[in-house]
């Protein structure tokens, strides 16, 4: 898992401590804590995991083991406009693979990567349950249905100045 070096500010550490406290510093709640923390910071760099481990009094190796186990957790920041291509079965048989490769080609990044300007990142997800609209692409919170490779450029253009 690739990662970047970050420096935490005191207020960031306080935020993490507060999150852990809201789950009673209970190690059973590690995954909920990580969810909340990722929500607050956008990703889970090593430094944040160190704080979480300390607050919940568990080994940081364990925290890292959990972070790398679940695909939802990321150690690199996502783009400002995270693009998620659904590769669930319904989307796959309706051509999600072609849509995905079009995004990769257009943005010149691979799945799990972020464009150098930090604008876009691509990830795959398995079924958001909108199979009726397959293939489905999400950009941030917005869902695009029945996406064809031809639509990819237009979708990207919508976010170009963001």
């Amino acid at each position, binding site marked *: 898992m690739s990662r970047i070096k970050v420096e935490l500010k005191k207020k960031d550490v306080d935020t993490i401590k507060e999150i852990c406290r809201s789950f009673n510093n209970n190690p059973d709640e590690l995954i909920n804590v990580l969810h909340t923390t990722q929500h607050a910071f956008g990703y889970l760099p090593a*430094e944040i995991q160190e704080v979480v481990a300390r607050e919940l009094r568990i*080994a*940081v*190796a364990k925290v890292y*083991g959990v972070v790398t186990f679940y695909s939802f957790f990321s150690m690199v920041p996502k783009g400002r406009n995270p693009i998620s291509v659904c590769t669930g079965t319904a989307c796959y048989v309706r051509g999600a693979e072609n849509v995905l490769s079009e995004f990769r080609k257009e943005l010149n990044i691979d799945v799990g990567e972020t464009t150098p300007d930090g604008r876009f990142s691509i990830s795959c997800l398995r079924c958001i349950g909108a199979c009726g609209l397959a293939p489905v692409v999400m950009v941030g919170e917005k869902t695009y249905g029945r996406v064809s490779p031809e639509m990819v450029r237009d979708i990207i253009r919508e976010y170009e100045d963001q």
Partner: protein
Amino acid sequence: MEMVTLTIDDKAVEVPKGTTIYKAAKKAGIEIPVLCYMDLGDLNIEHKPGGCRICVVEVEGRRNLAPSCSTEVYEGMQVHTHTIRVLNARQTIMELLLSDHPKDCLICPKSGNCDLQNMAIKMGVREIHNQDIAEVSTYRTDFSPAIIRDMNKCIMCRRCETMCNEFQTVGALSAINRGFMSVVAPAFEMDLEDSVCTYCGQCVAVCPTGALTEVDHTHRLIRDLSNPSKTVIVQTAPAVRAALGEAFGLPPGTLVTGKMAAALRRLGFKYVFDTDFSADLTIMEEGAELLDRLTRHLKGDKTVRLPILTSCCPSWVNFFEAQFPDMLDIPSTARSPQQMFGAIAKTYFADKIKVKRDHLVVVSIMPCLAKKYECTRDEFKVDGNPDVDYSISTRELAHLIKQANIDFHTLPDEEFDLPLGESTGAGVIFGATGGVIEAAIRTAYELYTNKKLPRIDFQELRGMDGIREAVIDFDGLPLNIGIAHGLGNARKLLEDIRSGKNSYHAIEIMACPGGCIGGGGQPLHHGNFSILKKRMEAIYREDAAKSIRKSHENPYIIKLYEEFLGKPMSEKSHKLLHTHYVDKSKKIIYI
């Protein structure tokens, strides 16, 4: 106990309810091959993740094959351990494991002593299909001062993870990633050196492949021994002599002190010394420190903290430096015997034989991997030159003896050289859990009470229980002693101290099961405590056979103080024989 009867390969077996098929088969004399499974019997750790699936067997009426290591038997169960279906499955699984494993057995440090290799031989895998299109999981090799992690060779048996987390509670290792790329690693795949690893070596001791091995210094040693400008001297730790024989087929518990000394001499060491000597020295310093703290405490000095903790185990030192930084002031400041030996060897002894410090190479033979790290610590260097140049493990020594074609069995028993080879029984028992504190009491009692010890053997301090405690009567003063071996047990004691739950005066802690006799550098005991017990008996046998059994009566120790050090805790002693500890805990740094 409720018993159940089952048949295994048409043999009827009766076993207690809850027994696994593997153990039931064993009872019936049927050996089922296992790979990830590890039974550390007396340590109360039975590692059976059911991960490798080599041990699968056929159970009638069951849809799929059952992992025998983790499937419980039931009444009337019918098990077949070697059907064609089973053999095909085992062979296929073995082939799968090998398809994701380097095939550099010829130069692998584990070759010849590798569970995976043995299993491959047993399974008769002769071909790995489609290897040309098979992706192989690869990881960066991690070189630390003591342990090398080559995770390309990891088969995910997870034994190391169990030792590191459940037994030692160090928490340096965890399974990471998922699926094909899953592997055991420190957090963020950082180097072990940067992690909380204590180098106890228990992971290395249980690793079935070449994934975790010790840093091998035998090549360096051969080069040094062949360099005429260098004077190479050696010290051997107490626990080595009680286990080295196992590597040559001798039964566990065979003492090979004399043969070992002879072998070392034949290997070309100029002087063959004994760490037991510096163990006696340790007692002088640590004992004095204990008495000093104790006396001040009894006088009401509030700045003194008790209990005093032993500090001769380097893994234990690493442990409290990383995980209990708030308690750095309670362990004894006395250096470990290995380091005391080095400090004296490169000053007192170097002067005696008129060899310059940097021409003198001090090598230690240790049952331990953390010792490899300990001698690299900056505190133990003078102008960059280490007091102990490097440490090799019992296993490496055995290998070297074999390599040099020395017939170990026919070697005569030889003595250690003087002066740093003379020791007392107190020095010997450092090798077993409880031994350091017993040695300390033998000396402290006499110094404190000015009376002769009514008895020398303190059975109440010996044994294999993870945490033990005893009260020793110091002529009216009841001295509360705590003993722990295994860092998991040490953690419990430390947490009790932190919360003020116990009131020990002195505590001995050893990181490995059984103390140094179960060290990470010893011939593999596979968790079999009977082997550890045999080694322990050997240690106490050697103690009992010694004419002098109290450290302060060692004539060469007395001479060392007279000629060189002055008295325990003198200025010179402080400089050469004591150390300080550093806070190695991860600090949360923010801006």
